[in-house]
């Protein structure tokens, strides 16, 4: 058996390749991009907003059932970019974990603790051959009691980072990050409206199309209302109008 030297299996399960890479993890990243959706998250000084495309492949589908934004607890939201089925598994486990945390310790699970848990679970899939990594990049958002608004991103490799101002995931991730880096040079502190509008206009600019309210999903948390909320179509419309009037 040539398993020990890789023998082609380094592409099939998560063992090292001769260059020290994990091909399965890299392919999981490609699966995230192949979903064809781009998402953007922006952190303001007292709110966090995440935006993603909503592509409904068939007109006969019930649009309300097509979503990538999931509340994990009342106060924590998760935006899953990539394979929807893998996203649902992750969300289910995260909801369970957050509920147990609240029961066990008596206070709400903080954003960074949930992100670390998701990332640690992803790491297990990169080390054990019998389970493949999930094809999902998760953006976790919430208002932390001590640190204020928080935005974390967890990827299939098990990395997780907190983001100071903004981040992106999905097929046009790199273009979006380049765009956001330029905008964020002066470390701005956005108000709630500015946060939402920056997120939506960044997505529009990177994908080079103007959206209708039904083509995007927006989720927010605010310091004065820390419950995670998905914006309704009317609210999204207001923001879109504000953006087009501004430009």
């Amino acid at each position, binding site marked *: 058996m040539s398993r020990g030297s890789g023998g082609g299996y380094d592409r099939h399960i998560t063992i*090292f390749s001769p260059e020290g890479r994990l091909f399965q993890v890299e392919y999981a990243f490609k699966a995230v991009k192949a979903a064809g959706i781009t998402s953007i998250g922006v952190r303001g000084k007292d709110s966090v907003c995440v935006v993603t495309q909503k592509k409904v492949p068939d007109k006969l589908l019930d649009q309300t059932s097509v979503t990538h934004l999931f509340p994990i607890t009342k106060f924590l939201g998760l935006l899953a970019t990539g394979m929807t089925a893998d996203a649902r598994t992750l969300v289910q486990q995260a909801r369970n974990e957050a509920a147990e945390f609240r029961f066990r310790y008596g206070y709400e699970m903080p954003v960074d603790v949930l992100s670390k848990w998701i990332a640690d679970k992803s*790491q297990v899939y990169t*080390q*054990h051959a019998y389970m493949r990594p999930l094809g999902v990049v998760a953006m976790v958002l919430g208002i932390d009691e001590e640190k204020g608004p928080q935005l974390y991103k967890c990827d299939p490799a*098990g990395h997780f980072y907190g983001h100071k101002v903004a981040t992106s995931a999905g097929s046009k991730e790199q273009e979006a*990050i380049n765009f956001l880096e330029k905008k964020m040079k002066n470390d701005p502190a956005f108000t709630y409206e500015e946060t939402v509008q920056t997120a939506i206009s960044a997505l529009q600019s990177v994908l080079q199309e103007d959206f209708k309210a039904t083509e995007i999903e927006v989720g927010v948390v605010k310091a004065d209302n820390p419950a995670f909320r998905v914006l309704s179509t009317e609210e999204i419309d207001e923001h879109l109008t504000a953006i087009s009037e501004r430009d």
Partner: protein
Amino acid sequence: MGDSQYSFSLTTFSPSGKLVQIEHALTAVGSGQTSLGIKAANGVVIATEKKLPSILVDETSVQKIQCLTPNIGVVYSGMGPDFRVLVRKSRKQAEQYHRLYKEPIPVTQLVRETAAVMQEFTQSGGVRPFGVSLLVAGYDDNGPQLYQVDPSGSYFSWKASAMGKNVSNAKTFLEKR
């Protein structure tokens, strides 16, 4: 550990007698960010590069150097997620020692137990070796100590060591001093 279908080790000997998965793991370490450690007469210092993938990342959310006990710290080169797993296991082992013996774990013991975990993953079914090398710095009754642990599970005590990218330049520099 692992599904029954994977109850064979993935790290097996090649015809020339090498464990190739471990060598690949070392390659992964060698392409990681540089870290180094120096043992002094009255202490130990460890340091690492902290290059983040983008300026958008909040650098306070990333901590590459971690505390295992109040007097033992660790830094890594290689894969961050694997490092987190080892930190968690080591902290638990240190606590279990303390619970049993009512004294802080000596550095050598903790290094030995961490190395044993890393060796397990080179021999157990259905798992791959860890893609990290660790530099463990500690101060106990035997004075300041610095250990390097490799993905194979072997560990050595060093007066000064480096790992990751450009390790040969770093080691030449350290040897001269």
